[in-house]
């Protein structure tokens, strides 16, 4: 049976690595992104790397009116439909403090936009009765930190949404995986101060594939972030509120 993966936010470095690893196993890909030309180049690359087919669909996560073509493409396939959501944005907290309107777009890009998309896709997945949804959250969603609590709050909302979606789709045989990456070496973090234990997009992509195979519910990646966040979550609030980590 052929596997089809919808890659939402296909231009993210993690998404590109993930799509390539899927292509190498012969999966069919539907690439969704904002720039058509870029998507065509990526589709060609993936076909040369083993994908039997790769389609490009232009969309904007802030505009649910652009979702239908992606879902139509998926509906036309036979076999298993899967989706991985990489869309997100992380303006600097200082910029948000200066321009609080940015709060709306952060929530839209990281939480309500992806939730809208998954809501639109859910009926197809339920009808197929199988498949996997991967939602990329972040360790930042585990606790509100001084440095990026707006982004963290949006990711936390997405985590909670994914947990509910897991409950809904799990009943129909569809797996939903919440992914909480630590720092990853991508355009989002390039040149930002204070990064440590930075993982490569390829390693994160590999972890996503393993989590899919093992039908995980939630992963931290790389794995040690589970323990780092365990500690951070357990710092009492009266101490935490004085820290600037």
């Amino acid at each position: 049976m052929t596997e089809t993966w919808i890659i939402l936010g296909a231009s993210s470095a993690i998404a590109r690595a993930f799509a390539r690893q899927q292509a190498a196993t012969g999966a069919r890909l539907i690439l969704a992104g904002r720039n058509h030309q870029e998507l065509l180049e990526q589709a060609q690359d993936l076909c040369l790397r083993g994908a039997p087919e790769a389609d490009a669909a232009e969309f904007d996560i802030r505009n649910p009116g652009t979702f239908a073509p992606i879902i139509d493409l998926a509906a036309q396939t036979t076999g298993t439909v899967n989706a991985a959501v990489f869309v997100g944005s992380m303006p600097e907290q200082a910029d948000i403090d200066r321009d609080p309107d940015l709060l709306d777009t952060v929530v839209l890009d990281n939480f309500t936009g992806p939730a809208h998309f998954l809501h639109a896709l859910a009926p197809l997945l339920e009808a197929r009765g199988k498949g996997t949804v991967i939602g990329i959250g972040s360790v930042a969603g585990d606790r509100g930190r001084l440095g990026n609590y707006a982004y963290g709050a949006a990711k936390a909302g997405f985590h909670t949404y994914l947990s509910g979606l897991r409950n809904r789709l799990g009943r129909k045989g569809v797996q939903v995986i919440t992914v909480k990456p630590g720092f990853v070496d991508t355009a989002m973090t390039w040149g930002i101060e204070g990064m440590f234990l930075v993982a490569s997009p390829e390693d994160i992509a590999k972890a996503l594939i393993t989590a899919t195979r093992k039908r995980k519910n939630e992963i931290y990646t790389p794995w040690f972030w589970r323990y780092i966040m365990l500690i951070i979550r357990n710092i009492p609030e009266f101490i935490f509120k004085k820290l600037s980590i």
Partner: protein
Amino acid sequence: MRWKTTTYSGWGNHLRATGQLARPEKTALLAPLLADEPAPAIGNRRSYGDACLNSDGRAIDMTRLDNLIGFDPDSGTLHAQAGVLIGDILDIFGPLGWMPAVMPGTGFVTLGGAIANDVHGKNHELTGSFGQHVASIELINQAGDIETITTETHPDLFRATIGGLGQTGVIASATLRLARCPGGTIAVSERRMADLDAFLDAFHGSTATYQVGWIDMGARGESMGRGILEEGSPAEGRFAKPRKLRAVPFTLPGFAINRLSVRAFNALYLRRVPKSGRERERPLRDFFFPLDRVLNWNRVYGKRGFQQFQCILPDETAPAALREMLDLISASGIASPLSVLKRLGPGRAGMLSFPMQGFTLAVDIATKKGSNALLAS
């Protein structure tokens, strides 16, 4: 485009640069970036020395622009962005019957870096240098203009770009003529070489496609120049699954590479091959990129890193010059594992390319007291 201020180094970890790096992840960002502020490109920093460093300046990291653009399975012509790794080209196109005609000793170099250094492989005598298999280059000049150049359209610029260390502009993509890849293995014969004369004679007598010598730089007296000659020819064995990489988890202390550890290593390495020699089939990656199995192996050289000395010697002067260098290095007491002796043919594609007919010796030397004096001599 965000610029990252960072300290970085080449593979030898000996020289470092502090400067600003941009790493575009989208093709469309590249030309405007250059028009904005001209900067040289760097690849995967597998150059040992300072070729990939721009101290106090800016540079553009090309590793994320790594799309395959087009492939013609009949002629084996591949068009790819400059950031694609040579090892990935081998992995992807090998099973389809094609591979890069020339590959350096590591698969972690980018297509752009392979062109900019006009790299040579273990088959140089027969196949020439990397640039001889490049059909065209898409070059972005300092003004941000994109031009496709070939030997026909821009003979001088083309020859200046191949082996040109990035000085003519940024290579955005290139078209390669791949070579046939009959199977997933190389039939390898390994023979012990008793001394330098035996080594050079064996090289002259060899007709194998691939030839590489591992020379024990510590051996003195009668066994000076002893080592192992590895000869390979393409075979039709199955393609191996990608192997698990091991990593050196942290930089070892500088004393890890010392006379004793290196002598023990070299002796073990020589003894791996029985006196009577051995023949076996090896997966392509194991044969072409033996060191790639351990990521970050450069960390064994400690914080101060190492330098690679490489020279090329014409056939007439090679025996005497090699003997003199072996003498110098073994007498210096500075340990140097894994020294490579290769035979090169006349093939070269650039004005500044390294190869010419003769022998090339490459010696890794840990940065220690006396290593600079040795390199200077």
